[in-house]
């Protein structure tokens, strides 16, 4: 693994800003989409695709690649941006999001686009599929080797913990002690109808996961260095699956969107998008100044 020095961290932070810009432009262009969660997870997607994941954009089907399941498929704009910036497909293609005949479906489709491990969107079923992938990795590991061939990451929303299916998968991962499974929860506290703790209280998420035999880490989802540390720790924990509860700010990077659940599934108009892009660029400037 590449050494994580301050230069690399700044690169990852700048990349996160780039992903945020892409997200705003894509959703503006599409006229619909889910900006809040996409912006909240930009830092984590930068860290995943440009540091943590073992993958090869030129060979998306490389059998030993790490798998990334995006269970909350509605934040696919940030994944599409990361895939394009990593070289899976031309950045230009981001403009086609949600357009007729596009490979960039409103919710990701495995058969359409390289780098998408599974179709997703309907909440609560990504972790089940990630569990299946982790079990397969274990079956494929070398005889007598305790180390699975690859790590499986499952990005989830907090609200999809309302789904019974999610807990079925959490229970099974605990049963099989899937050390090669890392769940990443975007704990941004919002969902379609309001704040998670009003709609269906989730706390204490940590204690719930611990009770289901998971290793639990919590961190600031906008601190890339901390997140990479958590992901490394998750990889090192061998005895059980790990969940990283990443505390994020919905709409992160755009002042008028932050913390506001109304931006869960609302597109921006042109004026709002211009303002958002200006803010994100300013933020990017701040990072570069410290270089």
């Amino acid at each position, binding site marked *: 693994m590449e050494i994580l020095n301050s230069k690399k961290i700044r690169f990852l932070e700048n990349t996160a800003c780039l992903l945020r810009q892409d997200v705003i432009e894509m959703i503006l262009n599409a006229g619909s989409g889910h900006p809040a969660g996409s912006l909240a997870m930009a830092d984590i997607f930068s860290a995943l695709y440009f540091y943590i994941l073992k993958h090869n954009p030129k060979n998306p089907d490389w059998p030993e690649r790490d798998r990334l399941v995006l269970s909350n498929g509605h934040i696919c704009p940030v994944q599409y941006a990361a895939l394009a910036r990593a070289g899976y497909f031309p950045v230009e293609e981001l403009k086609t999001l949600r357009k007729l005949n596009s490979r960039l479906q409103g919710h990701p489709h495995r058969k359409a686009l390289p780098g998408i491990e599974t179709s997703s969107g309907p909440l609560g079923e990504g972790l*089940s599929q990630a569990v299946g992938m982790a079990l397969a990795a274990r079956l494929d590991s070398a005889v007598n080797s305790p180390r699975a061939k690859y790590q499986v990451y499952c990005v989830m929303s907090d609200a999809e913990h309302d789904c019974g299916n999610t807990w079925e998968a959490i229970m*099974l991962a605990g049963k099989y002690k899937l050390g090669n499974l890392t769940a990443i929860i975007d704990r941004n506290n919002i969902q379609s109808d309001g704040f998670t703790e009003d709609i269906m209280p989730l706390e204490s998420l940590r204690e719930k996961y611990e009770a289901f035999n998971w290793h639990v880490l919590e961190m600031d989802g906008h601190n890339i260095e901390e997140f990479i540390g958590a992901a490394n720790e998750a990889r090192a924990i061998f005895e059980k699956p790990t969940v990283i509860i990443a505390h994020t700010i919905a709409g992160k990077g755009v002042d008028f969107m932050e913390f506001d659940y109304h931006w869960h599934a609302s597109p921006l108009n042109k004026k709002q998008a211009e303002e958002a892009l200006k803010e994100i660029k300013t933020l990017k400037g701040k990072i570069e100044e410290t270089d």
Partner: protein
Amino acid sequence: MEDIEQRATRDGFGEGLLKLGEENENVVGLSADVSNSCRMNFFAEKFPKRFFQVGVAEQNLVGVAAGLAVSGKIPFTATYSVFSPGRTLEQIRTAIAYNDANVKIAGHHAGLLTGFDGATHQALEDIAIMRTIPNMKVVVPADAIEARKATIFSAKINGPVYLRFAREKTPVFTSEETPFTIGKAEIFWQSLAGGKKPEVLIIGCGPVLYNALLAAKELEKEKIGVIVLNSHTVKPLDENKIIELVKKCGAVVSVEEHNILGGLGGAIAELLAKNYPVPMEFIGTKDVFGESAAPKDLFKKYGLEPKDIINAVKKVIKRKK
């Protein structure tokens, strides 16, 4: 025909899966706390590392299977049809079918043959549900031997397949030599009563097909010639063969242990309405739930006996004129 061997189609599934396990190390099995009654126990005992017990969690069963499939495995899920597809439609739709994931969904305890457990456990809508999902193939074996062949054959297909099995022992009326290919219907009876042309094409699937054969035999005594076609694959239908035989007979009776809405009969009606409309009658449950009773009593009450098929044949012949 009273002394014919009786075995459940679920037994054929168990044998087929065990054989597949021996032949192909990528075959894995998953069950939702019903591995014994679905006859997955033989596979589980022989290949414990390739068997995953998920507990009473059917949605997870489907999702985990999809994850295994996109990672190169050939998973078979086993639970009752009322739960999968019944409870798991959306997971099947998104995680299996939309992904075109190579999962074989074994739906057990389907139909009225589930008997005493009653309507909650008698799936009568599963064929209709699965038939409307893109990429999905639907196979309804007629006896234990065909069930074994269908299970083994399904693993040769790269993509989702729904296999429907029954709990109750039913007549074994195919043999090792009976041809079986998913997607290919087979003629099981062809009578030229009194040298006349066959008057009706009976198309059936599943164990109830045996009653169609009994009906055909009775009809021959009355000089009414029919063809009985085993359309074990409900999707994709063997369209060419069905149209060819319909042209010969000029009338159709469909026979299935399923709601007459949307199942095999529905599929055939869609095919014929577009290509070669003829009078048609439907044998199946009439948009009602079942109830607790012995399977034979349920077949009688819900109109799946040979006499019901005979009446349908006579009725459809009248409609030809």
